[in-house]
């Protein structure tokens, strides 16, 4: 259904995707796994024809470079965060994208019902929560029942409950012969949705595992998702980098890979730098051979009061 052959994408001289070949049959579900900067999102953008690339990508037998519009007819895409016309009503948004997909007769009510948004058609997009916006993006992606779904870290900006509900919704959609290609940082998502996991590192495809055998060989026990105000993010990244961590920007905050015995250290560094953390989550990265540590990587830390824990 999707065939990627020797895909190369560089930004300046830096390779973002380096000679990646990957093939997905109908009904396959492949997770792109890797740290920030591994090339997951760039690969997805190449599949959508949003970026110029070297190599070849065929979707349903159609060359994306030569006939991107026809290839995208086969794809339903959900981005990390929906940048949308905020004043548009939900019904109108669905009708607009239905027309662009050549399905002017699509029923907004049926589309919304399919993703659990029934009764919200009259609302403006700005009135929707983050989770509801992602559901709207999913409803739009499913217009015309495309055979392929492409998801780019779709739960990155959702809270734990929103994430759980959204992944549940996606699970219902898999197994119906639809092909799924998605990028994720979260182990529980990969375990729930993927059949195979493609590990990327610095743009290169390291290997492809069956999901049943997949165990992230992480040198870090957890990833902290720190939610910070927009103007605090760059100072926080600088402070954490100076403290020996490798933070990266993501969605509404920053990600900090941490060893199990040092999960509180980033908070100390940020407190010393007088940077306030609004909220945080701990996403556990499980070793295949790991023994549970006391409290595990999923325990609520005591530092910020308004925190939540990923399960």
């Amino acid at each position, binding site marked *: *259904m*999707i*065939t990627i052959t020797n895909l190369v994408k560089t930004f300046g001289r830096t390779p973002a995707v380096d000679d990646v070949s990957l*093939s*997905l*049959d*109908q009904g396959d579900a492949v997770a792109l796994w890797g740290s920030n900067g591994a090339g997951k999102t760039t690969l997805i*953008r190449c599949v*959508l*024809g*949003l*970026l*110029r690339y070297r190599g070849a990508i065929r*979707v*349903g*037998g*159609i060359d994306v470079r030569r006939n*991107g*519009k*026809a290839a*995208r*007819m*086969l*794809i339903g*895409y959900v*981005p990390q*965060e*929906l*940048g*949308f*016309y905020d*004043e548009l009503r939900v019904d109108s948004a669905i009708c*607009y*994208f239905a*027309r*662009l*997909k*050549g399905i002017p007769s699509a029923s907004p009510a049926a589309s919304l019902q399919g993703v659990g948004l029934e009764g919200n058609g009259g609302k403006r997009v700005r009135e929707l929560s983050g989770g509801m916006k992602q559901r709207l993006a999913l409803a739009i992606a499913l217009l*015309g029942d*495309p*055979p392929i779904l492409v998801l780019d870290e779709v739960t990155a900006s959702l809270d734990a409950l929103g994430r759980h509900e959204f992944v549940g919704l996606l699970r219902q959609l898999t197994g119906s012969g639809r092909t799924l290609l998605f990028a994720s940082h979260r182990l529980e998502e990969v375990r729930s949705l993927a059949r195979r996991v493609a590990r990327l590192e610095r743009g290169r495809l390291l290997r492809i595992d069956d999901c049943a055998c997949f165990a992230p060989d992480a040198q870090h026990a957890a990833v902290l998702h720190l939610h910070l105000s927009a103007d605090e993010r760059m100072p926080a990244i600088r402070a954490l980098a100076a403290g020996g961590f490798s933070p990266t920007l993501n969605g509404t905050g920053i990600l900090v890979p941490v060893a199990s015995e040092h999960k509180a250290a980033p908070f100390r560094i940020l407190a010393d730098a007088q940077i306030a953390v609004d909220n945080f989550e701990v996403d556990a990265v499980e070793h295949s051979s790991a023994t549970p540590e006391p409290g595990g990587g999923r325990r609520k830390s005591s530092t910020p009061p308004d925190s939540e824990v990923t399960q």
Partner: protein
Amino acid sequence: MSTAISVGDAFASRRPPSMASNTLCIARRELRDALKSRWFVLYTLAFVVLGLAVSFVSAAGTGGTGFSGFGRTTAGLVNLILLVVPLMALTAGAATIASDRERGMLAYLLSQPVSPVEVLLGKYIGLGASLLAAISLGLGACAVILSWRGGVSSPQAILWLAGLSFVLALGMLSVGIMISSLTRRASAAVSVAIFVWLTLVFVSDLALMAGAVALHLRIDELFALSLLNPLQVFKMWSLHAIDANLDVLGPAGLYAVEEYGRSLHAIFAVWLSAWIVLPLVVASVVLARKSPL
């Protein structure tokens, strides 16, 4: 892969929407958004109010006497159009693609079965239609006032002015969209557009005058240089179309009428058309090659 190909074949039977269909769909959305935009409403209101003021003052000053009265009104309206219409068109064009890129909407739109050219044309047609509405409203109101005060005896004159204003608006919209396609942030795009507007309205006139004095430009060189500024072309064309002479522009105007006569219409049309087409071509090339992110 045989399964994949057969599934692909099955879906290939559903063709993507045509270019015209997608372009019109985007144009309708753009038109609706533009008409709801408070900036657009403010510009249009300012245009109507100032246009009415010019019409009232001119008609009162001439005692409402026929076409020569309208000649004076024309000069006032032309100057008003030179200020308002390019500013409106440049800023509308500059904001459109850059703001969509900034909030991720451009990438999302292009992840649908839509091509960059369809996005560009859709936005251009939608914004062009909104500018046509603003110009029609502004000059329509002026025409009503002038007719009421007996200040205009030839409906042709106001139609010429409206038509040429629209052509000028389309040219400036093209330039605005080109700026937008080259810029990442909407605020930067609008700033560049305002700088271009200032240059075209004020600086180029001063530079032309300074150049004429300092470099002792010949009259034909002066005329050729003035053609480089689309606002000058609009001014010369509207005065020529309505009054059939360019005396008000001095020696360069006299030279143009004597030298080119009736072919002046064609010269002005080619220059303004170039201002419409060339920036749009540049924008479409940039949009097709540059990442929408």
